[in-house]
């Protein structure tokens, strides 16, 4: 094998490597021998950094000098639910500044949960001459001024995707900064923008970009404008409509219906804020070819949803509000046999009483009818162990299962038992399960099941569950492929964490908030584990102003080659060897 490696010329190896795309495979290649490491690092074009603090930009640049595409993630997942205070970190500017020098031919930047400033966007706009793709997922810190800079300068831009980012004080004029000569746009997602964009600029942009495949509009685009836009882009494959609401008028209806039926390639629909049901039939003609439907903003009731969904026989992905109810999910099970992913969101998450008739039965029906179902996110108010066992048996190919029973610690509503057995069945039957979110009343036993069976599990989310450290220990000890663990409001303390400290180096990160991990344990971990950053987040003030046994508010532990970071705000403390001394 080694003889062969030496005998093949570099160019040949490089050519062979160019067919290898996955990071895992490329990493494996680079470990074969020194010369393969060298060849591979010069021809790696895509970098994925799952935690921007796990490594620093100069390390990446030093090893991979010819990168064309970078993907970075910043804040922990629980930042989505306001558990990470503002100012925690995730600033992308240092990365962009370093790459502006090192990668002048960079084409793609994808960021998730990072703080992006206008200054950053301006730097991107002027540093990368061949810049093509910008994806800002759940990012914040920038305004439409930054977007204007991108529009004005990125002559070869193909994709601008702002999915779910928070954009400050938007005004719609940035869109006009795309020059008239700009025609390369393939994908535009502005669905998160609050205010109106300049409609004629939008229509003109859409009209002059013949390769436009994806267009996700924001809420401020009214229904009557949609027809104009669609007529200019009949080649669209993915469309996010704006507001789907207007006074019901036959001329507007036929205009919309005509525009939709002209779009023969449409496979994915989203948007649909403020829906007036009378306009829904306008999309019936294209329903049968839809593979993806996101109605999670559409406040339409179950009868309209049933009529719609029962025409979507090719549907693979459905995101919807719980207005669909059990009856709508039965229809889904009957008509959409290709369904792979279902997400049901709560229409009134804070209501005391259920406002819709959506129960465990809906999910059971879908599991019975849709044999390809492998990805589920389901918000509901009641569940039984039996239902979960049935779902587990019906869907052995499940890969992502996230159940959110809205009231914490809700037991099986029939037997009043914890839901340990139900989730136990999920992990036992679904051997390919990679992601799991738990809810309901759960004891340490569920964690024992998880540790025993969930061998492919990569991400686990836990809230208001467990009885003792044994629970946490089962997971850390048993889940061999665990990468991300996030826990809130569980009675887990020091013992399991300290006993499994080495495990933490095999994971990307661990989040624990409102648990019982003491400051003393954090210090100890910081001392003993130099390749972990132990971050204590505590808004009550310095942890050493309280006894060592006092639990910390929030704890974020992640493996890193970059050492402690220096951009922490006043309420974050890193437990490293030095600070452990400083604190004691």
């Amino acid at each position, binding site marked *: 094998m080694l003889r062969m490696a030496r005998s093949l010329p570099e160019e040949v190896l490089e050519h062979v490597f160019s067919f290898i795309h996955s990071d895992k495979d490329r990493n494996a290649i680079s470990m074969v021998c020194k010369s393969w490491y060298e060849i591979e690092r010069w021809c790696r074009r895509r970098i994925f950094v799952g935690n921007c603090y796990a490594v620093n930009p100069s390390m990446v640049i030093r090893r991979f000098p010819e990168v064309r595409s970078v993907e970075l993630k910043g804040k922990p997942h629980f930042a989505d639910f306001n558990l990470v205070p503002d100012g925690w970190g995730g600033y992308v500017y240092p990365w962009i500044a370093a790459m502006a020098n090192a990668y002048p031919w960079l084409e793609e930047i994808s960021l998730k949960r990072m703080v992006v400033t206008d200054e950053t966007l301006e730097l991107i706009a002027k540093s990368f001459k061949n810049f093509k793709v910008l994806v800002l997922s759940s990012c914040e810190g920038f305004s439409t001024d930054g977007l204007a800079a991108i529009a004005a300068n990125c002559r070869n831009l193909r994709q601008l995707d702002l999915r779910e980012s928070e954009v400050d004080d938007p005004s719609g004029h940035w869109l006009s900064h795309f020059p008239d000569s700009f025609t390369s746009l393939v994908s535009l997602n502005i669905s998160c923008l609050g205010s109106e964009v300049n409609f004629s600029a939008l229509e003109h942009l859409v009209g002059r970009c013949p390769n436009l495949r994806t267009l996700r509009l924001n809420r401020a685009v009214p229904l009557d404008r949609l027809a104009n836009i669609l007529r200019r882009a009949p080649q669209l494959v993915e469309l996010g409509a704006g507001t789907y609401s207007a006074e019901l008028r036959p001329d507007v209806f036929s205009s919309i219906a005509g525009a939709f039926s002209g779009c023969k390639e449409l496979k994915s629909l989203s948007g649909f804020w403020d829906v007036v049901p009378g306009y829904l039939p306008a999309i019936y003609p294209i329903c049968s070819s839809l593979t993806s439907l996101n109605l999670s*903003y559409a406040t339409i009731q179950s009868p309209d949803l049933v009529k719609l969904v029962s025409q979507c026989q090719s549907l693979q992905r459905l995101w919807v509000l719980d207005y669909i109810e059990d009856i709508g999910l039965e229809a889904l099970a009957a008509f959409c046999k290709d369904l792979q992913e279902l997400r049901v969101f709560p229409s009134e998450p804070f209501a005391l009483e259920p406002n819709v008739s959506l129960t465990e039965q809906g999910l059971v029906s879908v599991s019975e009818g849709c044999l390809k179902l492998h990805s589920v996110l389901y918000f509901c108010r009641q569940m039984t162990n039996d239902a979960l066992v049935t779902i587990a048996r019906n869907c052995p190919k499940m890969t992502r299962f996230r159940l959110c029973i809205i009231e914490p610690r809700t037991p099986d509503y029939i037997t009043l038992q914890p839901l340990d057995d139900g989730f136990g069945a999920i992990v036992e039957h679904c051997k390919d399960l990679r992601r799991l979110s738990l809810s309901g009343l759960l004891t340490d036993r569920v964690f024992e099941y998880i540790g025993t069976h969930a061998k492919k599990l990569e991400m686990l989310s836990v809230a208001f569950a467990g009885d003792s450290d044994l629970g946490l220990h089962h997971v850390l000890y048993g889940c061999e492929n665990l990468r991300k663990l996030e826990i809130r409001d569980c009675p887990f303390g020091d013992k399991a964490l300290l006993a499994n400290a080495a495990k933490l180096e095999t994971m990307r990160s661990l989040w624990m908030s409102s648990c019982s991990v003491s400051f003393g344990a954090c210090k100890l971990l910081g001392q003993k584990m130099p390749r972990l950053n132990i971050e204590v987040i505590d808004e009550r003030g310095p942890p050493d102003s309280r006894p060592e046994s006092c639990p910390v508010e929030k704890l974020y532990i992640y493996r890193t080659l970059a050492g402690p970071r220096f951009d922490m705000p006043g309420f974050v403390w890193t437990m490293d060897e030095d600070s452990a001394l400083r604190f004691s």
Partner: protein
Amino acid sequence: MSPEIGTHQLESDTAGDMNFKETELTLALPGESRTLKEMNGGTIGTKRGFLETVDLNLGSPRADCSDKDRNESENDVLTAAKPPAAKAQVVGWPPVRDYRKNAMKSCKYVKVAVDGAPYLRKVNLEMYNSYEQLLSALEDMFSCFTIRNYLNERKMVNGVENVPTYEDKDGDWMMLGDVPWKMFVESCKRLRLMKSSEANGLAPRTPSKCSSTSG
């Protein structure tokens, strides 16, 4: 209760049984692990009442952190204040993202900054029906910080020291209380509890609306 950190050895390889034996815990199945549960001070299978975790009990800051209840009262610092009409809300639960909540139009989340506090909070204006309810919630949310800073003075955030202001749709900073509540909810973009010295430049308003007990 603190673990025996002094004598504790951290394994770098095989985590699990060895270390647990050293800390005198057994990895028995839950039915047999009574000792473990007793040491943790918990009882088996008890459903802790949900509302207990959000029971607001912001008294004097406690140095004593030894009992388990401390963790629950620490949660108080983290939770949003209890609005009167709807159920008590825990921060980040249920796990629905803000943009989704906002899209449902039943929520209007605005950021709240307090001069001198290192962090921001978000409040949902739709959860309150009057200025009084909102101010009371803000007092709860930021009282922990206030107590620490104004040590012996039990001044609430909205006493003489801090003036509640908001930025409206036009970008102007206004004092709370001038416009009817609904109009305020409609136009408020963010809140700021300003030091009164800084608030002097704002549009003057009738004094009766300044106190924290009237809406």
